[in-house]
């Protein structure tokens, strides 16, 4: 085929009175891996949602093999050979893996379902993804990364000509990512074209043939990957030089310990974990997905059951049995699951912002002071530079980065002294990431103490003064100063260093 398989001309999209996509000319060549990058709110998701039939364009055209098409639904797009893998999972939790893979495309033999064929085919697709997920497993019992693999298997099994992937690797481990990339390349070899949205520029560099950069709803450039470096891509996305991603490391922890955790065990997740946090310290928690970092923190703040262990706050024993006990001691926890546990996505920014600190807004006769709430919202919008269509915007309508800013504003409402931030930059754009790093640094400067959990090592290394490493529920390493580097941390995380099981090592 000579021309592009999929093309858009002058594509525009309005949501209400707000235009989010401007005159987009996009071309996808047959058999290419085309990365689309840009900050949150740049229009990436809107573009691919139009291509896959979720949204209809306000102006402009989509052309498939040079013929104009109008997809009224995702089914139209799928029938035309365009299939999308979602950022948010689109799986039926109570069905099995196999039933999900064939959902809406069930194979029949006579009146009945051809179970044998579907099971066999599911097994093949899953095998090509080198995942150990069984076709008979219920989706609700799978881990997040397994669900992502099922989502990918579902799309692959539909034999699409164009496969659209919206941040497929956000929740995958490195080895799973490698498998996925191999699969994408083998699909490419079969002539499938792939549109790949990602925030991870190193992945884009590794995988893509062509890169299109979007910013504020406009296309900035489309270039072959060979002409670009990661720095150049980042600069184009942000529209300014990205020189200092991380703040200076000019802060030293104060000598006094604000949080002392001793022997905390949360059945099934964290075993006999002990560590301490000093005033003005930024302490990182590294480890593979599933190493128990989130569960340990949830156990500490009372969101998860604790079978043993002691917690001291500012030198005094603190009995924390529910999250509100932690809040009353000025300890807050930012969940990694922003949409599932962090924010009410169907409610407004204001409703979410004050939810944790609502007590402070109660006045005479138990009435909530709505004026004070509005003042706080305006302040938060200004302080965190939240970009929203209006002050009454619902969380769902905001980009990931702006949602995260609301989530940060929400925990800051209680004026915390100790902040536990779980994956604070997951799924958000480079510019917002940088803002969050500087925000964390600023908090420490004000004398607050911060724990950061992250699966992105460069970020932990860039921000933290000390990093604790966890592996299968145990604290196995504690590195600081010059010892902080990726190789050292990975050695602990993978179990090459730091003993096999129970004993906890506390290096300087």
């Amino acid at each position, binding site marked *: 085929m000579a021309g592009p398989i999929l093309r858009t001309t002058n594509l525009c999209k309005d949501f*209400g*009175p*707000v235009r989010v996509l401007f005159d987009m000319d996009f071309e996808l060549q047959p058999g290419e891996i085309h990365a689309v990058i840009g900050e949150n709110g740049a229009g990436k998701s809107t573009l691919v949602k139009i291509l896959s039939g979720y949204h209809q364009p306000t102006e402009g055209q989509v052309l498939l093999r040079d013929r104009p098409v109008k997809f009224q639904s995702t089914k139209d797009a799928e029938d035309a050979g365009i299939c999308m893998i979602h950022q948010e999972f689109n799986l039926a939790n109570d069905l099995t893996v196999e039933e999900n893979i064939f959902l809406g495309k069930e194979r029949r033999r006579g009146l009945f379902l051809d179970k044998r064929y579907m099971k066999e085919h599911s097994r093949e697709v899953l095998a090509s993804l080198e995942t150990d997920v069984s076709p008979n497993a219920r989706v609700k019992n799978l881990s997040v990364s397994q669900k992502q693999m099922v989502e990918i298997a579902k799309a692959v099994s539909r034999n699409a000509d164009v496969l659209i992937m919206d941040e497929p690797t956000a929740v995958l481990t490195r080895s799973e990512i490698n498998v996925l990339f191999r699969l994408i390349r083998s699909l490419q070899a079969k002539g499938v074209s792939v549109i790949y949205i990602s925030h991870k520029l190193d992945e884009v560099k590794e995988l893509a043939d062509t890169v299109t950069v979007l910013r504020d709803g406009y296309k900035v450039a489309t270039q072959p990957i060979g002409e670009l470096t990661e720095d150049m891509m980042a600069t184009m996305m942000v529209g300014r030089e990205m020189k200092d991603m991380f703040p200076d490391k000019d802060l030293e922890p104060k000598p006094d310990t604000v949080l002392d955790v001793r022997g905390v065990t949360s059945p099934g997740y964290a075993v006999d974990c002990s560590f301490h946090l000093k005033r003005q310290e930024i302490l990182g928690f590294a480890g593979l997905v599933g190493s128990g970092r989130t569960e340990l923190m949830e156990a500490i703040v009372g*969101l998860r059951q604790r079978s043993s262990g002691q917690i001291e706050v500012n030198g005094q024993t603190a009995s924390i049995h*529910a*999250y*509100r006990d*932690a*809040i009353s001691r000025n300890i807050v*926890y930012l*969940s990694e699951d922003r949409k*599932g*546990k*962090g*924010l*009410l*996505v*169907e*409610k407004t920014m204001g*409703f979410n912002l004050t*939810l*944790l600190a*609502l*007590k402070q807004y*109660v006045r005479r006769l*138990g*009435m*909530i002071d709505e004026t004070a709430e509005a003042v706080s919202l305006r302040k938060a*919008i*200004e302080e965190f*530079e*939240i*970009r*929203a*269509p*209006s*002050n*009454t915007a619902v969380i769902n309508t905001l980009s990931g980065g702006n949602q995260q800013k609301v989530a940060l504003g*929400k925990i800051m409402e209680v004026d915390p002294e100790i902040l536990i931030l779980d994956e604070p930059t997951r799924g958000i754009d480079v510019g917002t990431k940088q803002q969050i790093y500087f925000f964390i640094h600023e908090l420490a400067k004000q004398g607050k103490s911060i724990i950061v959990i992250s699966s992105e090592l460069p970020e932990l290394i860039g921000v933290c003064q000390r990093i604790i490493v966890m592996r299968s529920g145990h604290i196995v390493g504690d590195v600081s100063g010059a010892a902080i580097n990726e190789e050292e941390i990975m050695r602990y995380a993978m179990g090459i260093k730091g003993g096999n099981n129970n004993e906890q090592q506390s290096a300087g």
Partner: protein
Amino acid sequence: MSSKAPAETQGASRFTLDFRTLGPFVALALLMILGTMINATFISSANLTNVLTRSAFIGIIAVGATFVISAGGIDLSVGSMAAFISGVMIIAMNHFVNTVGVNWTTVMIGMGLSVALGLAAGLANGLVTTKGRIDSFIVTLGTMGIYRSLVTYLADGGTLSLSFQLRGIYRPVYYGSFLGIPIPLWAFFVVAVIGWIVLNKTRFGRYCLAIGSNADVAAYSAINVDRIRTLTYVVQGLCVAVATIIYVPRLGSASASTGVLWELEAIAAVIIGGTALKGGTSRLWGTVAGAIMLSMIGNILNLTDAISQYLNGAVQGVIIIVAVLVQRSGKGR
């Protein structure tokens, strides 16, 4: 950077919000016009007062149901609960006639007992749901059967009747009026106003909506989810108690058939009013409009020969389904 908010956006969102909120009232107005066209007596103040007074029981119960439903629960036991409380009230008051006498004190004891029973029954529903980690549908399906059979047992399969001497004293609570407006209507109005304030202006109300919207997020916002959920059932119990206090003097009796299907009418009023069954939203004045509409439909059918009044339930059913369809299409844009 942050001032990217064009004025039109706010206007647009306010408009859709208005549509959602106003829908039930528009429907109520249309129903009233229809009623007047069918039979002019409909719009007479005597008839309208009658309709509104009859809507008070379901309306007061539906105010409580708005709390339960907005927090993501459901209470099917309210009709049986009302029957059970009526029965116990009547037995107790008949008993105290002999010791305390035929006076207001005896009636007040009955009313106090009603409130205590309502709170206790609501608390039981709430605690079993939250502590037992059982779906509220199942729990209240169970207590619905329990309360219903208790009143049947207390009445020994027949009817419990309030002593005739007491009826004279208690009568004005249903049949009396204040400033020309019947007492039940005052009660309905006061309960609705208090309900609206609690739901929209207090921490408890805000927490109900948060829990109904996403209970996980609520827990991660340091909200005591179990306690708030339990309290919604207590509020529901209290509303049932108030409704029962007004209901008992109307007929002066209670039997196994008292309050049958009230739970469904209350839930229907809430849904017609624009509160989502899955929780997370509340439209208290919509609930009020919904309760009035349900009672109005029966009244209009009584005033016309075109449709048999035995089809009352069918018309109500159609209205419920249409209301939800209209709300959904309004929400889409």
